[in-house]
Protein backbone atom coordinates (compact mmCIF):
# COMPACT_ATOMS: atom_id res chain seq x y z
CA UNK A 1 0.00 0.00 0.00
CA UNK A 2 1.18 3.47 -0.87
CA UNK A 3 2.47 5.33 2.21
CA UNK A 4 -0.05 8.19 2.15
CA UNK A 5 -2.93 5.74 1.84
CA UNK A 6 -1.51 3.81 4.81
CA UNK A 7 -1.52 7.11 6.77
CA UNK A 8 -5.20 7.63 5.94
CA UNK A 9 -5.83 3.99 6.92
CA UNK A 10 -4.25 4.70 10.34
CA UNK A 11 -6.03 8.04 10.78
CA UNK A 12 -9.51 6.71 10.04
CA UNK A 13 -8.79 3.66 12.19
CA UNK A 14 -7.76 5.90 15.12
CA UNK A 15 -10.61 8.38 14.83
CA UNK A 16 -13.62 8.00 17.12
CA UNK A 17 -16.04 9.72 14.75
CA UNK A 18 -16.25 9.71 10.94
CA UNK A 19 -13.17 11.59 9.72
CA UNK A 20 -13.88 14.49 7.37
CA UNK A 21 -11.88 15.18 4.22
CA UNK A 22 -11.10 18.64 5.65
CA UNK A 23 -9.48 17.09 8.74
CA UNK A 24 -7.47 14.72 6.54
CA UNK A 25 -6.25 17.68 4.50
CA UNK A 26 -5.06 19.43 7.66
CA UNK A 27 -2.85 16.44 8.36
CA UNK A 28 -1.82 15.80 4.74
CA UNK A 29 -1.77 19.37 3.40
CA UNK A 30 0.04 18.41 0.19
CA UNK A 31 -3.28 17.11 -1.19
CA UNK A 32 -6.27 19.07 -2.40
CA UNK A 33 -9.79 17.80 -1.83
CA UNK A 34 -9.76 15.86 -5.09
CA UNK A 35 -6.44 14.26 -4.18
CA UNK A 36 -7.74 13.02 -0.81
CA UNK A 37 -10.89 11.66 -2.45
CA UNK A 38 -8.67 9.74 -4.87
CA UNK A 39 -6.73 8.15 -2.01
CA UNK A 40 -9.98 7.30 -0.20
CA UNK A 41 -11.34 5.57 -3.29
CA UNK A 42 -8.22 3.38 -3.50
CA UNK A 43 -8.40 2.64 0.23
CA UNK A 44 -12.10 1.71 0.06
CA UNK A 45 -11.37 -0.62 -2.87
CA UNK A 46 -8.47 -2.17 -0.98
CA UNK A 47 -10.73 -3.05 1.97
CA UNK A 48 -13.45 -4.26 -0.38
CA UNK A 49 -10.97 -6.54 -2.14
CA UNK A 50 -9.48 -8.05 0.99
CA UNK A 51 -12.95 -9.34 2.00
CA UNK A 52 -12.22 -8.93 5.70
CA UNK A 53 -14.60 -8.36 8.59
CA UNK A 54 -14.94 -4.61 8.21
CA UNK A 55 -14.76 -1.97 5.51
CA UNK A 56 -14.62 1.74 4.78
CA UNK A 57 -17.90 3.73 4.54
CA UNK A 58 -18.78 7.36 3.95
CA UNK A 59 -21.12 8.34 6.82
CA UNK A 60 -22.24 11.59 8.46
CA UNK A 61 -20.01 13.76 6.31
CA UNK A 62 -16.88 11.71 6.99
CA UNK A 63 -15.20 8.31 6.63
CA UNK A 64 -15.19 5.46 9.11
CA UNK A 65 -14.61 1.72 9.32
CA UNK A 66 -17.69 -0.37 10.10
CA UNK A 67 -18.05 -4.11 10.59
CA UNK A 68 -19.74 -6.00 7.74
CA UNK A 69 -23.54 -6.05 8.25
CA UNK A 70 -23.76 -9.78 7.41
CA UNK A 71 -21.39 -10.56 10.29
CA UNK A 72 -23.65 -8.78 12.84
CA UNK A 73 -24.90 -12.05 14.42
CA UNK A 74 -21.36 -12.93 15.57
CA UNK A 75 -20.52 -9.42 16.75
CA UNK A 76 -23.78 -9.24 18.69
CA UNK A 77 -22.79 -12.45 20.48
CA UNK A 78 -19.56 -10.76 21.47
CA UNK A 79 -21.34 -7.67 22.78
CA UNK A 80 -23.92 -9.84 24.58
CA UNK A 81 -26.89 -7.76 25.78
CA UNK A 82 -29.59 -6.76 23.35
CA UNK A 83 -28.99 -3.72 21.16
CA UNK A 84 -30.72 -0.58 22.34
CA UNK A 85 -33.75 -0.27 20.09
CA UNK A 86 -35.84 2.84 19.68
CA UNK A 87 -39.55 2.50 20.47
CA UNK A 88 -42.09 3.14 17.67
CA UNK A 89 -43.02 6.41 19.43
CA UNK A 90 -39.38 7.52 19.49
CA UNK A 91 -38.92 6.57 15.82
CA UNK A 92 -42.05 8.49 14.78
CA UNK A 93 -40.94 11.59 16.68
CA UNK A 94 -37.46 11.26 15.20
CA UNK A 95 -38.93 10.96 11.69
CA UNK A 96 -40.91 14.18 12.14
CA UNK A 97 -37.82 16.02 13.41
CA UNK A 98 -35.66 14.62 10.59
CA UNK A 99 -38.05 15.57 7.78
CA UNK A 100 -39.45 18.82 9.19
CA UNK A 101 -36.34 20.32 10.76
CA UNK A 102 -35.96 22.89 12.13
CA UNK A 103 -39.24 22.17 13.90
CA UNK A 104 -40.91 23.28 17.14
CA UNK A 105 -42.38 20.83 19.64
CA UNK A 106 -45.96 22.02 19.01
CA UNK A 107 -45.70 20.93 15.36
CA UNK A 108 -44.43 17.47 16.31
CA UNK A 109 -47.28 17.18 18.85
CA UNK A 110 -49.78 18.11 16.13
CA UNK A 111 -48.45 15.64 13.54
CA UNK A 112 -48.29 12.74 15.98
CA UNK A 113 -51.51 13.70 17.77
CA UNK A 114 -49.93 13.24 21.19
CA UNK A 115 -47.69 15.18 23.57
CA UNK A 116 -44.15 14.23 22.53
CA UNK A 117 -42.45 15.76 25.61
CA UNK A 118 -41.19 12.46 27.00
CA UNK A 119 -39.97 10.96 23.73
CA UNK A 120 -38.34 14.24 22.73
CA UNK A 121 -36.38 14.30 25.98
CA UNK A 122 -35.25 10.71 25.35
CA UNK A 123 -34.04 11.65 21.87
CA UNK A 124 -32.19 14.68 23.27
CA UNK A 125 -30.51 12.47 25.87
CA UNK A 126 -29.50 9.94 23.22
CA UNK A 127 -28.02 12.88 21.29
CA UNK A 128 -30.08 12.01 18.19
CA UNK A 129 -31.89 15.36 18.36
CA UNK A 130 -30.65 18.77 19.52
CA UNK A 131 -31.90 22.30 20.02
CA UNK A 132 -30.91 24.29 16.95
CA UNK A 133 -32.29 27.71 17.80
CA UNK A 134 -35.52 29.56 18.33
CA UNK A 135 -38.34 30.35 15.96
CA UNK A 136 -38.85 34.03 15.28
CA UNK A 137 -42.48 34.16 16.40
CA UNK A 138 -44.01 35.37 19.70
CA UNK A 139 -42.78 33.25 22.59
CA UNK A 140 -39.69 32.32 20.53
CA UNK A 141 -40.24 28.52 20.87
CA UNK A 142 -37.23 26.21 20.67
CA UNK A 143 -36.45 24.67 17.27
CA UNK A 144 -35.22 21.08 17.10
CA UNK A 145 -33.12 19.30 14.49
CA UNK A 146 -31.18 16.07 14.10
CA UNK A 147 -27.52 15.62 15.05
CA UNK A 148 -24.45 14.20 13.39
CA UNK A 149 -24.91 11.21 15.64
CA UNK A 150 -28.33 10.65 14.06
CA UNK A 151 -26.59 10.33 10.68
CA UNK A 152 -24.06 7.95 12.20
CA UNK A 153 -26.62 5.74 13.94
CA UNK A 154 -28.80 5.49 10.83
CA UNK A 155 -25.75 5.20 8.55
CA UNK A 156 -26.57 8.18 6.35
CA UNK A 157 -24.05 10.22 4.38
CA UNK A 158 -26.18 13.34 4.89
CA UNK A 159 -29.84 14.36 5.25
CA UNK A 160 -30.44 14.38 1.50
CA UNK A 161 -29.99 10.61 1.65
CA UNK A 162 -33.28 10.26 3.53
CA UNK A 163 -35.93 8.83 1.21
CA UNK A 164 -38.65 11.27 0.22
CA UNK A 165 -41.80 11.05 2.31
CA UNK A 166 -44.20 8.66 0.66
CA UNK A 167 -47.41 10.30 -0.32
CA UNK A 168 -49.90 7.62 0.37
CA UNK A 169 -52.70 7.78 -2.14
CA UNK A 170 -54.44 4.77 -0.75
CA UNK A 171 -54.28 3.77 2.84
CA UNK A 172 -55.43 0.22 2.15
CA UNK A 173 -52.42 -0.50 -0.03
Amino acid at each position, binding site marked *: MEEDIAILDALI*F*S*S*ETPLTVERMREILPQYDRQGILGLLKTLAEHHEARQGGFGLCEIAGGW*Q*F*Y*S*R*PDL*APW*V*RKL*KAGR*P*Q*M*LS*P*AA*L*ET*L*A*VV*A*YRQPVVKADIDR*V*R*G*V*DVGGTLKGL*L*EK*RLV*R*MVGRKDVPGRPILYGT*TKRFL*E*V*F*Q*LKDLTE*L*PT*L*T*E*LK*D*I*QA
Partner: protein
Amino acid sequence: MSYEIKLDVFEGPLDLLLYLIRKNEIDIYNIPIALITRQYLEYLDLMKALNLDLAGEYLVLAATLLHIKSRMLLPVPEEEDGGTEDEAGDPRAELVQQLLEYQAFKEAALQLDRRTLLERDVFKRGAPPEALPGEEGEETPIEADIFTLVEAFQRMLSQLDQADLMEIDLERISLADRINEIMDSLALRRDMTFAELMGEQITRQRIVYTFLAVLELMKLRMIRVYQAASFAAIRIFIVGEE
Protein backbone atom coordinates in the same frame (compact mmCIF):
# COMPACT_ATOMS: atom_id res chain seq x y z
CA MET B 1 -49.18 -3.46 33.43
CA SER B 2 -52.41 -2.94 31.45
CA TYR B 3 -51.32 0.63 30.84
CA GLU B 4 -48.29 -0.70 29.00
CA ILE B 5 -50.45 -2.90 26.75
CA LYS B 6 -52.23 0.17 25.44
CA LEU B 7 -48.94 1.93 24.78
CA ASP B 8 -47.70 -1.11 22.90
CA VAL B 9 -50.70 -1.30 20.64
CA PHE B 10 -51.31 2.32 19.65
CA GLU B 11 -48.99 5.29 19.46
CA GLY B 12 -51.87 7.73 19.87
CA PRO B 13 -55.43 8.53 18.75
CA LEU B 14 -54.40 8.96 15.10
CA ASP B 15 -52.78 5.55 15.18
CA LEU B 16 -55.98 4.02 16.58
CA LEU B 17 -58.04 5.74 13.89
CA LEU B 18 -55.73 4.46 11.14
CA TYR B 19 -56.05 0.98 12.57
CA LEU B 20 -59.87 1.14 12.43
CA ILE B 21 -59.78 2.44 8.85
CA ARG B 22 -57.47 -0.36 7.78
CA LYS B 23 -59.44 -3.02 9.66
CA ASN B 24 -62.67 -1.99 7.94
CA GLU B 25 -60.92 -1.67 4.55
CA ILE B 26 -62.23 1.83 4.13
CA ASP B 27 -61.16 4.43 1.57
CA ILE B 28 -59.49 7.15 3.62
CA TYR B 29 -60.89 9.84 1.32
CA ASN B 30 -64.42 8.68 1.99
CA ILE B 31 -64.58 7.69 5.65
CA PRO B 32 -68.04 6.51 6.78
CA ILE B 33 -67.84 8.80 9.77
CA ALA B 34 -70.78 7.34 11.71
CA LEU B 35 -69.34 3.82 11.60
CA ILE B 36 -65.80 4.89 12.47
CA THR B 37 -66.96 7.17 15.29
CA ARG B 38 -68.98 4.33 16.79
CA GLN B 39 -66.08 1.91 16.64
CA TYR B 40 -63.66 4.53 18.00
CA LEU B 41 -65.94 5.22 20.98
CA GLU B 42 -66.41 1.49 21.54
CA TYR B 43 -62.67 1.13 21.70
CA LEU B 44 -62.40 3.95 24.23
CA ASP B 45 -65.09 2.26 26.34
CA LEU B 46 -63.13 -0.97 26.17
CA MET B 47 -60.00 0.80 27.34
CA LYS B 48 -61.95 2.37 30.19
CA ALA B 49 -63.49 -1.00 31.10
CA LEU B 50 -60.01 -2.46 31.26
CA ASN B 51 -59.17 0.39 33.60
CA LEU B 52 -56.56 1.78 31.24
CA ASP B 53 -55.33 5.27 31.78
CA LEU B 54 -56.80 7.11 28.81
CA ALA B 55 -54.66 9.98 27.58
CA GLY B 56 -56.56 13.22 27.03
CA GLU B 57 -55.66 13.24 23.36
CA TYR B 58 -57.96 10.25 22.74
CA LEU B 59 -60.90 12.21 24.10
CA VAL B 60 -60.05 15.26 22.00
CA LEU B 61 -60.20 13.17 18.83
CA ALA B 62 -63.47 11.60 20.00
CA ALA B 63 -64.94 15.09 20.28
CA THR B 64 -63.62 15.96 16.81
CA LEU B 65 -65.22 12.84 15.34
CA LEU B 66 -68.58 13.61 16.96
CA HIS B 67 -68.40 17.18 15.68
CA ILE B 68 -67.69 15.99 12.12
CA LYS B 69 -70.52 13.47 12.40
CA SER B 70 -73.01 16.18 13.40
CA ARG B 71 -71.89 18.41 10.54
CA MET B 72 -72.31 15.54 8.08
CA LEU B 73 -75.95 15.29 9.13
CA LEU B 74 -76.66 18.92 8.24
CA PRO B 75 -77.97 19.56 4.72
CA VAL B 76 -75.20 20.75 2.41
CA PRO B 77 -75.87 24.37 1.36
CA GLU B 78 -76.48 24.71 -2.39
CA GLU B 79 -73.58 26.34 -4.24
CA GLU B 80 -74.33 29.05 -6.78
CA ASP B 81 -73.23 27.03 -9.81
CA GLY B 82 -74.89 23.92 -8.55
CA GLY B 83 -71.73 22.27 -7.24
CA THR B 84 -72.44 20.70 -3.90
CA GLU B 85 -69.50 18.67 -2.71
CA ASP B 86 -66.18 20.42 -3.22
CA GLU B 87 -63.21 19.34 -1.07
CA ALA B 88 -63.13 22.40 1.15
CA GLY B 89 -66.73 21.90 2.11
CA ASP B 90 -66.25 18.33 3.30
CA PRO B 91 -66.18 18.37 7.12
CA ARG B 92 -63.83 15.37 6.99
CA ALA B 93 -61.18 17.09 4.84
CA GLU B 94 -58.99 18.38 7.67
CA LEU B 95 -58.98 15.07 9.50
CA VAL B 96 -58.12 13.20 6.27
CA GLN B 97 -55.20 15.56 5.74
CA GLN B 98 -53.98 14.96 9.29
CA LEU B 99 -54.29 11.20 8.90
CA LEU B 100 -52.38 11.18 5.61
CA GLU B 101 -49.60 13.27 7.12
CA TYR B 102 -49.36 11.02 10.17
CA GLN B 103 -49.40 7.92 7.98
CA ALA B 104 -46.51 9.29 5.90
CA PHE B 105 -44.39 9.85 9.03
CA LYS B 106 -45.34 6.45 10.44
CA GLU B 107 -44.05 4.93 7.21
CA ALA B 108 -40.90 7.09 7.39
CA ALA B 109 -40.31 5.82 10.94
CA LEU B 110 -40.53 2.22 9.70
CA GLN B 111 -38.08 3.00 6.91
CA LEU B 112 -35.66 4.47 9.44
CA ASP B 113 -35.90 1.29 11.48
CA ARG B 114 -35.23 -0.84 8.39
CA ARG B 115 -31.91 0.89 7.72
CA THR B 116 -28.55 -0.60 8.64
CA LEU B 117 -28.22 0.58 12.22
CA LEU B 118 -25.11 1.29 14.23
CA GLU B 119 -24.74 -1.08 17.21
CA ARG B 120 -27.38 -3.39 15.74
CA ASP B 121 -26.16 -4.23 12.22
CA VAL B 122 -22.78 -2.60 12.06
CA PHE B 123 -20.23 -1.79 14.72
CA LYS B 124 -17.45 0.71 15.07
CA ARG B 125 -13.98 -0.10 16.26
CA GLY B 126 -14.54 -1.06 19.88
CA ALA B 127 -11.28 -0.17 21.58
CA PRO B 128 -10.76 3.41 22.72
CA PRO B 129 -8.20 5.26 20.61
CA GLU B 130 -4.65 4.57 21.71
CA ALA B 131 -3.07 7.01 24.07
CA LEU B 132 -0.15 8.62 22.34
CA PRO B 133 2.26 11.02 23.96
CA GLY B 134 0.57 14.33 23.33
CA GLU B 135 2.04 17.58 22.12
CA GLU B 136 0.56 20.58 23.87
CA GLY B 137 -0.07 23.80 22.08
CA GLU B 138 -3.05 24.60 19.92
CA GLU B 139 -6.46 25.23 21.39
CA THR B 140 -8.51 22.05 21.42
CA PRO B 141 -12.01 22.20 20.04
CA ILE B 142 -14.75 21.64 22.61
CA GLU B 143 -17.57 19.23 22.07
CA ALA B 144 -20.70 20.28 23.87
CA ASP B 145 -24.34 20.86 23.28
CA ILE B 146 -26.80 23.15 24.88
CA PHE B 147 -28.94 20.32 26.23
CA THR B 148 -26.13 18.96 28.41
CA LEU B 149 -25.50 22.47 29.73
CA VAL B 150 -29.13 23.04 30.62
CA GLU B 151 -29.36 19.56 32.11
CA ALA B 152 -26.37 20.29 34.30
CA PHE B 153 -28.06 23.47 35.47
CA GLN B 154 -31.30 21.69 36.21
CA ARG B 155 -29.55 18.85 38.03
CA MET B 156 -27.88 21.39 40.26
CA LEU B 157 -31.11 23.25 40.94
CA SER B 158 -32.96 20.07 41.88
CA GLN B 159 -30.25 19.40 44.45
CA LEU B 160 -30.61 22.90 45.78
CA ASP B 161 -34.38 22.68 45.77
CA GLN B 162 -34.73 26.39 45.31
CA ALA B 163 -35.65 26.52 41.65
CA ASP B 164 -37.91 29.53 42.14
CA LEU B 165 -34.94 31.45 43.45
CA MET B 166 -33.07 30.69 40.24
CA GLU B 167 -35.84 31.20 37.73
CA ILE B 168 -34.29 32.62 34.64
CA ASP B 169 -34.98 36.22 33.97
CA LEU B 170 -35.04 36.74 30.21
CA GLU B 171 -34.64 40.50 30.60
CA ARG B 172 -31.53 40.02 32.61
CA ILE B 173 -30.14 37.63 29.97
CA SER B 174 -30.86 40.19 27.25
CA LEU B 175 -28.97 42.76 29.27
CA ALA B 176 -26.00 40.41 29.79
CA ASP B 177 -26.01 39.84 26.05
CA ARG B 178 -25.78 43.53 25.26
CA ILE B 179 -23.02 44.02 27.86
CA ASN B 180 -21.03 41.24 26.21
CA GLU B 181 -21.58 42.63 22.73
CA ILE B 182 -20.56 46.13 23.76
CA MET B 183 -17.38 44.87 25.47
CA ASP B 184 -16.55 42.84 22.34
CA SER B 185 -16.99 45.86 20.07
CA LEU B 186 -15.00 48.11 22.38
CA ALA B 187 -12.19 45.57 22.66
CA LEU B 188 -11.67 46.03 18.92
CA ARG B 189 -12.35 49.76 18.58
CA ARG B 190 -11.38 51.31 21.98
CA ASP B 191 -14.01 54.02 21.54
CA MET B 192 -17.35 54.27 19.80
CA THR B 193 -20.35 56.55 19.62
CA PHE B 194 -23.63 55.51 21.17
CA ALA B 195 -25.12 55.36 17.67
CA GLU B 196 -22.37 52.98 16.54
CA LEU B 197 -23.04 50.77 19.55
CA MET B 198 -26.66 50.55 18.54
CA GLY B 199 -25.71 48.86 15.30
CA GLU B 200 -28.03 48.42 12.39
CA GLN B 201 -31.11 46.74 13.78
CA ILE B 202 -32.63 49.49 15.83
CA THR B 203 -35.60 48.33 17.80
CA ARG B 204 -37.19 49.86 20.84
CA GLN B 205 -36.02 46.90 22.91
CA ARG B 206 -32.46 47.18 21.61
CA ILE B 207 -32.26 50.87 22.45
CA VAL B 208 -33.47 50.19 25.99
CA TYR B 209 -31.05 47.32 26.59
CA THR B 210 -28.11 49.18 25.03
CA PHE B 211 -28.83 52.13 27.30
CA LEU B 212 -29.17 49.90 30.38
CA ALA B 213 -25.96 48.05 29.42
CA VAL B 214 -24.05 51.34 29.11
CA LEU B 215 -25.32 52.43 32.54
CA GLU B 216 -24.36 49.07 34.04
CA LEU B 217 -20.87 49.22 32.50
CA MET B 218 -20.40 52.78 33.77
CA LYS B 219 -21.36 51.62 37.25
CA LEU B 220 -18.85 48.77 36.94
CA ARG B 221 -16.27 51.36 35.78
CA MET B 222 -15.59 49.34 32.65
CA ILE B 223 -16.33 52.26 30.33
CA ARG B 224 -16.32 56.05 30.40
CA VAL B 225 -18.83 58.16 28.58
CA TYR B 226 -18.13 61.66 27.21
CA GLN B 227 -20.12 64.23 25.38
CA ALA B 228 -18.16 67.22 24.01
CA ALA B 229 -21.18 69.51 23.88
CA SER B 230 -24.93 69.30 24.27
CA PHE B 231 -26.44 67.41 21.33
CA ALA B 232 -22.95 66.30 20.22
CA ALA B 233 -22.34 62.59 19.72
CA ILE B 234 -21.99 60.60 22.92
CA ARG B 235 -18.62 58.79 22.86
CA ILE B 236 -17.94 55.67 24.87
CA PHE B 237 -14.41 54.64 25.87
CA ILE B 238 -13.22 51.36 27.29
CA VAL B 239 -11.34 51.68 30.59
CA GLY B 240 -7.92 50.00 30.48
CA GLU B 241 -7.05 47.30 33.00
CA GLU B 242 -5.34 48.90 35.96
